[in-house]
C-alpha cells in the first residue's frame, strides 16, 4: 500500500501531527502494517516538497509540527482512488510453475503435490478466519483486509481444484497433450513462455 496516499487520506479528514498520523495509520490498518517514524516524516517532507500538503512553517521539525492537505493534494488523492492498480500482466506464479513441473515429471503424483499446497492454503485461511471470530467483528477496516486475504487465498485453492479436475479428466479421456509434443522439433515452445508471449501481444 502507498504510504504517501494513506497520509493524504488521513489528512483529508483535517490537519494532523506527524505522530498522530503514524498512530492512525497503524490503527486503521488493523496494525497489520507497522510504520516507523522515519517513514512518516520522509513521506511528509516529500508531500510538502510536491505541494500536496503544507505545514505551519513556524514550528520546528518533530512531533509538534502540524500538516494539512492542499487543494492539489486532494486532487492527487481523488485521482489515485480511481486509478486501477496494474493487474494486466500475469505475475510469475511459483505455485503454477510447481504444478506444471509436477505434471511433466515422471513418477510424481500430481494430486499429492496439489493437496500439499491446498492443505497449506486452507490452514492459512483458518488462521485468517480466527481473526473474524475473535471479536474483530465490528472493525470494518480489519474485516475488509481479512476478507481480501481470504478471497485471494480462496482463488488459489479454486485454481488447484480446477487444475486437479482438468488433469483427472484429461487423463481419463487420454487427451493430455503438450504444446511441444504437438511440435516435437520445437523444444522451446513450452506452454508457459508461449502463454506469456500471447498475453504480451494482447496488451
Amino acid at each position, binding site marked *: 500500500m502507498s504510504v504517501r496516499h494513506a497520509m493524504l487520506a488521513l489528512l483529508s479528514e483535517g490537519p494532523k501531527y506527524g505522530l498522530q498520523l503514524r498512530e492512525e495509520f497503524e490503527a486503521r490498518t488493523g496494525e497489520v502494517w507497522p510504520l516507523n517514524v522515519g517513514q512518516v516524516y520522509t513521506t511528509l517532507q516529500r508531500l510538502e516538497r510536491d505541494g500536496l500538503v503544507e505545514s505551519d512553517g513556524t514550528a520546528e521539525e518533530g512531533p509538534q509540527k502540524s500538516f494539512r492537505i492542499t487543494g492539489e493534494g486532494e486532487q492527487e488523492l481523488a485521482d489515485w482512488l480511481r486509478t486501477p492498480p496494474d493487474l494486466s500482466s500475469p505475475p510469475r506464479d511459483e505455485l503454477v510453475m510447481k504444478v506444471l513441473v509436477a505434471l511433466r515429471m515422471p513418477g510424481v503424483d500430481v494430486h499429492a503435490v496439489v493437496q500439499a499446497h491446498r*492443505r497449506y*492454503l486452507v490452514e*492459512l*485461511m483458518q*488462521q485468517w*478466519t480466527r481473526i473474524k471470530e475473535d471479536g474483530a467483528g465490528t472493525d470494518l477496516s480489519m474485516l475488509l483486509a481479512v476478507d481480501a486475504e481470504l478471497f485471494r487465498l480462496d482463488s488459489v485453492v479454486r485454481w488447484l*481444484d480446477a487444475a*486437479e479436475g482438468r488433469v483427472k479428466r484429461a487423463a481419463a479421456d487420454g487427451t493430455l497433450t503438450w504444446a511441444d509434443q504437438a511440435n516435437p522439433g520445437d523444444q522451446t515452445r513450452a506452454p508457459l513462455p508461449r502463454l506469456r508471449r500471447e498475453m504480451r501481444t494482447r496488451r
Partner: protein
Amino acid sequence: MSMLELRQVSKSYGQGSAEVHALHEVSLTADEGAMVAVMGPSGSGKSSLLTIAGTLEEPTSGEVLIAGQPVSRLSRGAKAQLRRRVIGYVFQDFNLLPGLTAAENVSLPLELDGVSGRKARVAALDALGQLDLSGRAAHYPDQLSGGERQRVAIARAMVGKRKLLLADEPSGALDSVNAESVMRLLHEACKNAGMTAVVVTHDAQLASWADRVLFLRDGRVTDQTAPAAGPESLLVPDGKQ
C-alpha cells in the same frame, strides 16, 4: 468425548460391474464442541459420508458411533429416536415446509417426537430468538430471504438441545455475506452451545471456519489440516514489511 465417530466406513452402491464405491474405509472423529469440515469436489463422497453419519443410510462395512454408541446395534425405533432427538440436519436448499410458518417449521421435529404443541412452540421461539429471528416467527418461508430461511433451518436443526449438527453445503445457495453468517452461527453453536458440527462443502472459505478440515477425494480421506494456529502467527514482526 467423541460425539461422532466413523470407523473404517465403506459404502458401495450397485453390484458387479455396475458397482460404485462411494466411500473407502473412511475414519473420522468429531469431539463434543468441535466443528469439522469435510472438503472435496462433487462426487468425492461428501454427501454419502453425511447421510451415513446421520444414520439415514447404512454403511456397507465399518461402524458409526454416535455419543459412543454403535449405531448398527440400535433397533429401528432407537435409530429413529436418535435422528429426532440427537441429530440435526441442515441442507443446501433449506428444506423448509412451505405451508408452515418459521415457528411451525422449527417446532415440527419436537411435535413429531411427541412433545406437546405448547412446549414445542416455546422451544421453537427460543431457538429462533437465538438466531435473531424472533420477528420472523409468524412468517412463511416464501416471505423470508434466503439467509433467513437458512437460519430457520439451523434453528430447526438445533431445537430441543440436539447434540450433533450435520450440514451439507449449508450456504451453497447464499451470497458470501449471508454464507459467512451461517458459518458463524454453526461455529457459535459448537463453541457456546457445545454442539458438534460436521459440515461438508467444496468451499475453502466456509471450511476455514472449522477447527479441522478433512479432505475427501474419490471416497477416501486423503489428508487433513493440522490443529489450527492462532491468528497471532499472521502478524508481521516489526521491520519485516
